[in-house]
């Protein structure tokens, strides 16, 4: 009674930040907020600290991860655990290193790529032969291995110790931890966080952070505007054996990727866990009440596939005895990546959940970057891959999640080659989907969950239409892909004849106002001048306050007071939230998401004009219908089609925005009339080749919030004279100070298309032997007959690591570039390469 009364008192006092969830993530965010000066923080935990899933973690901290963001996050965590341990707070940090095993040559390539990527963050790793692996850990079976990768700086922590340390932090620098307090509702004022209603009373706050782990999805529903947190719990296993003679306390953590298991030493025995290819979702109907310090009943039958692999790798494990088999539920996400960042639905609502069973490894870095995100409204590094705004409503559908996490759990340890996901597919599809399926399209699932054709496989007309596109050919999934010749044919259709691409997945917004308020609004959020004649299409960036790219889009002026905005597929949630956040308070500008209303057909190529002329009465000559303009025309018997003379590929042609009811008619008419023009269904891979070859940067890979137009060569799309737009000041300052990185196009020389590993993005670039940046987009340029890579060049001081102001001399004069593709360096030429427009 007394306790709850006194809790009530504490609850009533308003605070700046309320953190929901007392696991390792929530605690780490509280720690880092306080460390960065925000101590007015209350952390609420419905049970006891760490009682959800943190307490049964395996405690691995391995840094060779799939993306730069994750590497950077885990790298920071390992430094933090080490530092805390040094400072006398025991976290059980043991720097035993990681030993990652490669059974296939594909895995060797993946590991080499990961090593190169991690090296930039100071993560050292070395390749070992199977014999060296054997020597390092004699109990391993190594006759089926190709290689091993030893990462000496990796380590493990003891989750119990970490928990104990976290508990000690309870009163740390004024941060309040309240246990046994359940959140009933997150209170909003308008669409902004205002407070939290709990079973111990309510508390006012400015910021709310949802760190509720596997409860996070449900907690997301507890506000009047629900917040998407797409995750689903799965059973997750590890086994602890009784002490074994063969196990030494200093043995490294073993990760056998191809057998989906890992092993670490645990009080004289082994702790062996894994990520089975088909997981077992659990708690679909909700998590039981009071699920605190609890495990699920063990299902040995489900665990068998992992046990088999463990016994295979460690033959002497056969004689070991079990101490316990732990089935602790963990939450997994639709793409196996964390969910971080600011909720797009509600202002000042942050999320850090869905750690896909690497919460301990992630906690440090996640805490640091989330604190930055909350305090400075941007993290210091690009975390787009982990950003909650990558999701749409579909991803939060429980049935979608249940089917998907079955698969993503198994991908957690895989890393490396990203094969297509096969579950929860064909959920969204364009009106042209079945037509394209009949014409042997191979699809992948776009960020919006809508299928899009990546290429057409005419040779295999009855294949599964979302087959794995990385079927190994000769050099595995990193070598020359099977689709090479197909994409080549599609590419040439677009360059020499006419190609047709379904672009319906692009994000489409309609913006309008009674007067010209919409013009003022867009002039404020866009860096280019959008106040152009009706019918004009304007490519523009939407910058953040640091001048970086929040969005990259095309804006079409349909009327004096109305615009149509086309953005990247993946930007639907993010750019909508950004625009909504900046809309005039008076409601004078109306923003609507019309993505699903239109089907977009891109008719690309020199013959596009002649073909389209057969189907429409509108004059299409280059003078009558100029480049970068939009007109409403008829195509065949369908009307009201917005035809835009741009193709996102540098070729002539139109994108037709067709009200979806008429899409089939327009498609069929184009295909019928197009027959005599050699029209070819074309997928996204050909488009990628076209635009990369022409040095068109794309949002998400080349353009990020950390990149400004000056750095990516898009100064010409910024109208500094108009002023008064978001990011203006930052850009002006940058123009004065100079830039520190620059997007450059590279042509790879001496590359054997059939024998060498291909560049796929994320390869380090070297200038005169010095590391100077990473590639972003890559594609094979069929006209240039070389691999084309885009990448950022920086002038990094080799001693201090400081980034100097770039000069064009640095980039182009006396500079010999090389790109390192999985351990082999290829010379390359830097510059912009003109393509001769007549391929004949």
């Amino acid at each position: 009674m007394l306790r709850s009364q006194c809790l009530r008192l504490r609850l009533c006092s308003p605070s700046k930040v309320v953190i929901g969830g007392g696991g390792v993530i929530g605690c780490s965010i509280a720690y880092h907020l306080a460390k960065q000066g925000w101590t007015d923080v209350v952390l609420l935990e419905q049970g006891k600290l760490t009682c959800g899933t943190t307490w049964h973690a395996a405690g691995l901290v391995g840094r060779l991860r799939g993306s730069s963001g994750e590497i950077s996050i885990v790298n920071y965590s390992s430094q933090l655990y080490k530092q805390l341990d040094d400072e006398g707070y025991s976290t059980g940090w043991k720097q035993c290193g990681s030993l990652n095993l490669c059974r296939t040559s594909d895995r060797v390539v993946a590991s080499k790529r990961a090593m190169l990527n991690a090296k930039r963050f100071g993560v050292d790793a070395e390749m070992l032969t199977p014999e060296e692996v054997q020597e390092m850990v004699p109990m391993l079976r190594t006759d089926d291995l190709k290689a091993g990768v030893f990462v000496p700086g990796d380590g493990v922590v003891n989750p119990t110790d970490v928990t104990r340390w976290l508990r000690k932090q309870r009163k740390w620098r004024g941060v309040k931890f309240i246990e046994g307090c359940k959140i009933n509702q997150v209170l909003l004022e308008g669409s902004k966080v205002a407070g939290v209603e709990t079973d111990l009373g309510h508390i006012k706050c400015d910021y709310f952070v949802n760190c509720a782990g596997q409860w996070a999805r449900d907690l997301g529903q507890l506000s009047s505007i629900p917040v998407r947190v797409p995750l689903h719990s799965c059973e997750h296993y590890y086994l602890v054996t009784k002490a074994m003679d063969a196990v030494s306390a200093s043995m490294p953590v073993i990760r056998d990727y191809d057998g989906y298991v890992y092993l670490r030493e645990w009080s004289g025995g082994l702790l062996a866990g894994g990520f089975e290819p088909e997981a077992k979702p659990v708690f679909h109907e909700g998590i039981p009440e009071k699920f605190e310090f609890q495990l699920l009943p063990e299902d040995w039958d489900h665990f068998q596939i992992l046990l088999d692999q463990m016994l295979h790798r460690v033959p002497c494990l056969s004689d070991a005895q079990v101490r316990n088999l732990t089935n602790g539920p963990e939450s997994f996400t639709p793409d196996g990546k964390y969910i971080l960042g600011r909720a797009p639905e509600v202002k000042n609502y942050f999320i850090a959940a869905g750690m896909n069973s690497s919460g301990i490894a992630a906690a440090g870095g996640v805490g640091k970057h989330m604190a930055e995100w909350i305090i400075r409204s941007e993290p210091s590094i690009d975390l787009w891959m982990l950003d909650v705004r990558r999701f749409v409503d579909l991803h939060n559908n429980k049935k979608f999640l249940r089917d998907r996490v079955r698969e993503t759990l198994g991908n957690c340890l895989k890393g490396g080659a990203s094969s297509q996901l096969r579950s929860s597919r064909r959920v969204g599809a364009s009106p042209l989907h079945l037509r394209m399926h009949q014409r042997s399209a191979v699809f992948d699932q776009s960020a919006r969950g809508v299928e899009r054709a990546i290429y057409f496989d005419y040779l295999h007309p009855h294949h599964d239409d979302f087959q794995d596109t990385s079927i190994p050919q000769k050099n595995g999934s990193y070598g020359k892909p099977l689709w090479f010749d197909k994409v080549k044919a599609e590419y040439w259709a677009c360059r020499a004849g006419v190609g047709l691409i379904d672009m319906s997945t692009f994000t489409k917004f309609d913006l309008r106002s009674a007067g010209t308020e919409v013009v003022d609004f867009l002039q404020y959020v866009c860096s280019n001048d959008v106040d152009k004649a009706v019918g004009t299409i304007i490519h523009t960036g939407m910058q953040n306050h640091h001048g970086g790219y929040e969005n990259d889009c095309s804006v079409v002026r349909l009327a004096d007071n109305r615009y149509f905005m086309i953005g990247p597929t993946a930007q639907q949630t993010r750019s909508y939230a950004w625009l909504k956040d900046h809309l005039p308070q008076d409601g004078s500008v109306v923003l609507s998401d019309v993505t699903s209303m239109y089907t977009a057909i891109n008719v690309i190529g020199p013959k596009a004009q002649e073909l389209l002329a057969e189907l429409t009465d509108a004059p299409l000559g280059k003078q009558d219908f100029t480049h970068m303009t939009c007109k409403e025309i008829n195509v065949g018997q369908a009307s009201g089609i917005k035809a835009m003379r741009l193709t996102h590929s540098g070729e002539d042609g139109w994108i037709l925005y067709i009200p979806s009811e008429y899409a089939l008619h327009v498609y069929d008419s184009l295909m019928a009339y197009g027959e005599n023009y050699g029209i070819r269904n074309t997928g996204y891979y050909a488009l990628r080749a076209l635009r990369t070859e022409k040095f068109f940067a794309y949002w998400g890979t080349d353009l990020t919030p950390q990149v400004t137009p000056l750095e990516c060569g898009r100064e010409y799309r910024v109208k500094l004279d108009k002023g008064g737009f978001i990011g203006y000041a930052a850009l002006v300052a940058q123009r004065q100070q100079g830039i520190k990185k620059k997007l450059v196009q590279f042509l790879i020389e001496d590359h054997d298309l059939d024998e060498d590993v291909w560049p796929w993005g994320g390869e380090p670039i070297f200038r005169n032997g010095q590391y100077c940046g990473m590639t972003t987009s890559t594609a094979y340029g069929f006209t240039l007959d070389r691999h084309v890579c885009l990448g950022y060049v920086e002038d990094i001081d080799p001693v201090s690591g400081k980034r100097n102001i770039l000069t064009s001399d640095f980039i182009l004069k006396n500079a010999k570039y090389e790109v390192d593709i999985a351990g082999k360096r290829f010379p390359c030429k830097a510059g912009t390469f003109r393509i001769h427009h007549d391929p004949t």
Partner: protein
Amino acid sequence: MAATLTKLTCTRRSLNCLLWTPPSRGYVPRGYFREKLGYVPTLSPPEVTSLLIQNEVRVERQVKAKYVVGAFESNQVASNNPIEDRRAVGRLTNSGATLYGIFDGHGGPSCAQAVSERLLDYISVALLSPEELEQFSHTMRSDVPMELIEHMSFMNAYSSPTLTSRWKASLQKFVVESLSMSGFDDEHIEGSLLGEALKTAFKRLDNDLSSEAMPVANTMDEDMIGIALSGACACVAHVDGLNLHVANSGDCRAVLGKLEDSNKWCAIPLSVDHNPDNGQEVSRLKKAHPKSESGFIIKSNRLLSQLIPLRAFGDVRYKWRVQDLKILEAACGHTVIPMNYYTPPYLTVEPEIRFHRLGPRDKFLVIASDGLWEMLPSEDVVRLVGEYLEARDTENKFHAGSSLSLGNINRSLKRRQQGLSHNVKDSNAATHLIRHALGFEHRLVSEMLTFPPYVARNYRDDITITVIFFDEDFILNQYS
């Protein structure tokens, strides 16, 4: 003829409503749901399941390793309306032996019904020693007669009190006559005592069915004639310790499921089908009649062009003398005598007896009417029940004892993986078999269950199955 037979059996009509009839929505003309793609299921998966499990029975011994039969599971599904199959299960009070019978009626259910109600009693009497007979005869007319057999009653079983009392009288007569014969016949008995007793019981009951139907002073008992004009094949298993006897008359079948050392399921037949496909049976028949008749006896693959089973209860049309049949014809006003009927009897009920001593690898016995065997060969039936057993074994969670090594745990788990891989939807082996006999796929099963009555019989017969599971530990104990 068919019309009269229906008339004769109509006294049972009121009782027949207890049997399963397809739901009315099953009668929607098939064409109505037919599209280009073929049949569209008119039953939902839960509806199919609820129809299939309607007559399900499972009886399990609560005490393990004490009885040879650990459990039995039984089920039936009708094609004829009413169903013509019957089943019976009973336990002999003096020996503790258990009896499992399957009775496949034809020409109406009356004969199978009577046999299912009476045969086990006849067997129990036939098995009594002279002393026991004596003892029993003293109590049988009293208010509390000695209980010879415990009948297991099935949910869908029924009996009529008036008939039951007549049958009691016949049984008492059998007891009295057996008593008077005892002491004489012992030395003539060939083969096992038990086998002979089973044969005696079959023959005696068939005799009684026949004589009860014989018109007396030109009055005839419609009920009794209905029973005797229809027929029934019968297959009965007698399990006493490790001794398994199967008595079979007609085309029901008993198959033993054995798990070979190689972990493969093996089907051991414990009966032969008495039908025209059985060469031995055909030659037995031909030998028993003049050569001149050999062209007529089996024609169109039927006995006298009419009957498929070559041994059966009832069916007096193939057993009685011509003059007796003529009386019957006069009474019911239509032809009953088959063409080329010269040297009756053409049909016998005498069962073939098979003996099998149960071994530790014998896991179960399947007895079923020919409705099952028409759809699935014995090997498939045994494999399916085997898979059912393996799947059942994995129903309970695996617990790893702390003393087990991981290698041993993995070996056990691998074995379980096999059981887990079987797609077993039903919790009853007989239902599992019926589902497979009807096609297993939902669409097929739904179609099979919704054929209108007049076509159903063209696609499938009534199916009745009893699966007897032997207690492995009991058998092992007997051997050690």
